[in-house]
């Protein structure tokens, strides 16, 4: 840190809003507030954009994950003439049990900077996601290019991957379903479509909509195989829906239908995206960056590599007034958004306990303390010889009987510019209650998909393994870590949400929108007249194929 140039002074020194951290939620807030005419200062202690949503090279990823929690400096540079009380600001890393293994340094090391690995993968956008609409509405799409994730698979207990029959054409082409199963699945899709017709007369009854989705599927006489496909590979449910004693998260029929509708309307929304999902070129770190650029266009000031060390509180009321930067400079603002890895050491005046609880509910977020286990694998060949980009879902209980949550795996290749050509990146994630559970889940999936070179002699085992199993790719590099799930909250200072365990950004952006509206109840979230060149149709989003 010492060889970095001295912190530049920031001018002006008073803003409507200071945002710390350039993750997706913070960047969206910064862009929205700038669009609403607020003066915004956007800071990030890291030398890159994206915070916990960043896409990083191997060395950067490694140091970001290993980042030690930064304790509050013991010595606060004293400003005796200050009118404010300074309260120390500490950061806690949400990542624990980080394990990074390099099995083929001779291949990986020369290329280590040619990767753009997502910190919070696997994550994609449904073509019909609200996030797509937001990207278009905000004008962020000017800075983004997407490519399509072509297909998706579901694993069975034998480890076989079969493609997910997610559309009429896919059911038609499917090779694994029997004719009668095809008929049942398509009939169910039609039932859902008819239900979604506005003013249609074939609605699913209100009673059914309130029952657990899994019960509704049973009532529709769908066989277990199809139920599993609908629940875990289409509705993207995390928790085992059949385990009644552990019904922490039973999806309601109403929500299940919404998920199916989202999936269904995603297929074919963009003519050059055959599947349901798209993903930004150069990694998901492009998304927050695009919003930051949008904010900058609207006048937001950006300073990277700038730690925030303390909050400044009004001496009398202990209300928030501003922040003290790593440079010692004090910047004032009426509102502050911090990413959730920051913690304030002393309570602020306006944060009674129940108000925190209330704000969590406002954000529609779950109070349950949960973790997400993430893994990144680099391989030299594809899991499926003829395909490059696809998603694989391991439903609960398919890996081992006690498996309580689904594991999602996303493979992508060099066409997304996330890795050198000839290599493939696999992102894995699963919700878990504790570290052991998380590691077991990741390990089970990696074992079933990939050949692990033995540790003592990578060179020799490399060739052995290749002869034994030509299908499974060999692991070149891997990382696994457990991430705490912190949700945002709103007070006089607001905390933006951390990456969640979902496949897409919808919950996260919902929380962000609510946070913004809570902060600025009178402002529009991206007023419609933003850019005249923003064409109305979907074609405004450029998909480079």
């Amino acid at each position, binding site marked *: 840190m010492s060889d970095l140039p001295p912190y530049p002074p920031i001018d002006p020194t008073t803003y409507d809003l200071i945002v710390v951290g350039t993750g997706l939620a913070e960047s969206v807030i910064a862009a929205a507030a700038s669009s609403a005419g607020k003066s915004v200062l956007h800071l990030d202690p890291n030398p890159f954009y994206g915070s916990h949503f960043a896409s990083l090279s191997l060395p950067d990823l490694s140091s970001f994950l290993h980042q030690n929690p930064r304790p509050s400096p013991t010595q606060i540079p004293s400003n005796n003439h200050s009118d404010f009380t300074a309260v120390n600001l500490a950061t806690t890393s949400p990542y624990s049990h980080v394990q990074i293994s390099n099995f083929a340094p001779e291949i990986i090391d020369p290329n280590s900077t040619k990767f753009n690995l997502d910190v919070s993968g696997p994550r994609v956008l449904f073509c019909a996601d609200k996030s797509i609409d937001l990207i278009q509405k905000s004008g962020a799409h000017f800075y983004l290019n997407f490519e399509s994730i072509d297909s998706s698979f579901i694993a069975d207990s034998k480890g076989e991957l079969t493609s997910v029959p997610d559309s009429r054409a896919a059911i038609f082409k499917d090779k694994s379903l029997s004719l009668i199963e095809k*008929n049942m699945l398509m009939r169910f899709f039609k039932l859902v479509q008819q239900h979604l017709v506005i003013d249609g007369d074939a609605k699913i009854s209100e009673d059914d909509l309130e029952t657990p989705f899994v019960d509704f599927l049973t009532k529709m006489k769908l066989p277990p195989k199809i139920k599993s496909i609908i629940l875990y590979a289409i509705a993207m449910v995390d928790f085992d829906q059949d385990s009644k004693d552990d019904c922490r998260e039973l999806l309601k029929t109403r929500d299940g239908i919404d998920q199916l509708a989202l999936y269904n309307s995603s297929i074919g929304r963009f003519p050059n995206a055959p599947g349901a999902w798209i993903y930004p070129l150069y990694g998901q770190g492009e998304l927050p960056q695009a919003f930051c650029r949008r904010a900058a266009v609207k006048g937001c000031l950006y300073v990277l590599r700038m730690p925030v060390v303390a909050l400044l509180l009004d001496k009398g009321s202990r209300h928030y007034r501003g922040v003290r930067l790593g440079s010692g400079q004090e910047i004032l603002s009426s509102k502050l958004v911090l990413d959730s890895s920051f913690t304030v050491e002393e309570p602020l005046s306006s944060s009674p306990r129940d108000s925190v609880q209330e704000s969590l509910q406002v954000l529609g977020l779950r109070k349950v303390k949960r973790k997400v286990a993430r893994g990144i694998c680099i391989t030299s060949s594809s899991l499926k010889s003829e395909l490059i980009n696809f998603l694989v879902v391991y439903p609960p209980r398919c890996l081992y009987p006690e498996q309580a949550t689904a594991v999602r795996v996303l493979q992508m290749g060099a066409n997304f510019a996330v890795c050198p050509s000839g290599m493939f990146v696999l992102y894995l994630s699963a919700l878990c209650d504790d570290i052991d559970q998380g590691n077991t889940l990741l390990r089970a999936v990696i074992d079933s998909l990939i050949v692990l070179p033995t540790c003592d002699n990578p060179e020799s085992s490399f060739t052995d393994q290749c002869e034994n199993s030509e299908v499974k790719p060999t692991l070149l590099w891997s990382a696994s870590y457990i991430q705490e799930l912190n949700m945002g909250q709103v007070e006089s200072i607001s905390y933006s949400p951390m990456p969640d365990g979902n496949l897409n950004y919808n919950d996260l952006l919902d929380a962000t929108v609510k946070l913004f509206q809570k902060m600025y109840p009178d402002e529009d979230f991206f007023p419609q007249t933003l850019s005249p060149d923003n064409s109305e149709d979907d074609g405004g989003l450029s998909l480079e194929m």
Partner: protein
Amino acid sequence: MHGRPRKAPKPEDEAASAAKAEKLRLLQSQFLSNHNNKIYTKEAVDLSATLLEINPESYTAWNYRKLAVEHHLSLLESDPDSVNSLLNEELRVVENALRQNIKSYGAWHHRKWVLSKGNTSIDHELRLLDKFQRVDSRNFHAWNYRRFLAALMNRSDQDELKYTEDMINTNFSNYSAWHNRSVLLSNLLKKKAEGFLSKEDILSEEYQFVHQAIFTDPDDQSGWFYHLWLLEQTVKDASPLLVSSWPAHGSAVNQLGDWCLDSSASSPITSFYSGLGAFPLVLYFNQAVEGVNSSTVTVESALDKNKDLIWKPLSANNSHTSQLWFTHLHFPDKKIQSLEALPVEVSLGHSQGIISSSGMHYTHPSRFSFTVRTQPVETDFAGAHQEEIISWKDEYFHIYETHSQELSLAVSFDQLHFRNGHESTTSDWRAPDWRAQVIDEEIECFRELLRSDGLKDCKIGKLTLARLLTANDKMVFPCSNKLNHSEVLELYSELMTLDPSHYHYYKDEHSLVLLQQVISNTDSMLRHSFHFRGLTSLTIGSPTCLRLNNLSLSRIGSFEKLLWVQMLDLSHNELRSIEGLEAMQVLSCLNLSKNKLSSFTALEPLRRMESLRVLDISYNEIGTHSVDTTKYLCSSPLSHSVEIEWNHDEIVTVWEAFYLLKGLNLTQLDIVGNAIADEKFKLFLVKFLPALKWLDGKHLL
């Protein structure tokens, strides 16, 4: 392109469309004046382009452009660059016109015309076509054009087949793609292209393929249509076969002289009377064939007058192909009548020449034989009989009582199935083969589909199952008696209630199957066979009458098993048509009373039934409905000899009646109970049918 509701135009839209029409009218008149004055300047040609890009339907403009192109081509024959740019300009105009209306016949035709001039990149055409097919994947203009291009560039059928597969995989609700697939597969199978040698394998794969569509979405009809095509490909026998004949193999024909029915003969259904000194020889094939003549069919007998027989097709549309062929064998003169039975042997298939309409040769050499015995009959009795009226009252019909009578009938019925006559190169030619197996699998498959929830009332599923079961019956009969008639009848009955708008179709199919059920079984045949004892003449015994009355039939079929019938009662049914009845060449007495026949046109098959003498068409609907006016095949009978005054409608009906009846030699006609049958009409009948002895039960003097 499909399934988009049309919105009612708003007032402002109407104003805009009026303005557009005005502009178009101006363009049109300018263009026409150019055209008339043969002006082909750049401005004039551009004007036609403007017109076509607004209204691609202007045929005259397309033709004008063709003339302009020819004009310019004749001027710059030698310069390939100018020719190219001239033709490319045409392609550009067509492309713009197609953007305006992708379904413009004129535009597509113009494009083909331009391509026929050569000089164009077909790859470019394919790319353009891809674009159009993405906009509307089942547009048949685009598919037609695709076939045109594929032929032009000699693209292989295999490649095109793969293309249909891709299109179907993208969206299987594509009639055009399925249709093109059927066309390509027919070609490939016919050519026996590499990989398409085994029809069995190809059809099995196609069945698997179309199942995916049908089961995924049974509500989509495109797959069902393809399935129907596959079924047709499966059941249609590869090579033509003789199914039945009259006289049947092994039968003894008793010729009873003039107008007599025999009772003493061993088998009542092979006796025959004739007033013509000849009797018909009928061949019934399993499919329409051509090339039946005296060189392809050999008839050997002591009746040496029958050397060069003239074979005639008996088809409704006067074509050269027919399922049924007949000729007349001539009897020995009455002077040399004897009780000796003369053997006749008929053989066919020993030389090439009989070809099915699909080009397959008759390859199963067949032979059958029968004997002809002539019995002397006193002409007095015959004359007496001619005056006697045939009455269809129930009391004159008697069931067969004695065992021996039944036995002889049963044996005769058995003879009707033509299974031993073939000198079998393939001894099991009717035994279940792969076709039967395929049909069996299909039946199981659709039974399963119909069992699943929500598909209990799937109409097209039921219809397909009924068709499959019928196909199965046709294939296994007569080797197996496990026939599915009852199930099929049940299915059609359900369909009649489920789908009232197609009631008549289901009713017809139901009737055909019902008839098969009656006829395929000897017991039920016996139940419908009666002695007729309505004649009192001394020589006359009791001829056999097949009574298929009161069965609520709307159509009749299974004629291959009814060739022997001489007396037929179809009264009290719901017949609207008697299509196919002409196969019954020895039928002399026919009762069609109390049916739903609505015109003389509906009776047209009777024209070719030369043996018919007694006809009852009373209590039908002739003259009730507006008549079919499509038939004016003969000159007016009224042009010179009728004194009675007719109004126009009456003339049409009378005309039809005359056309139908003039060739028949009816001695008895019942027509009462039809709207047409007034006194005036009866006078007409009496006048024009000199052989008629009885009209509506009244003896004519």
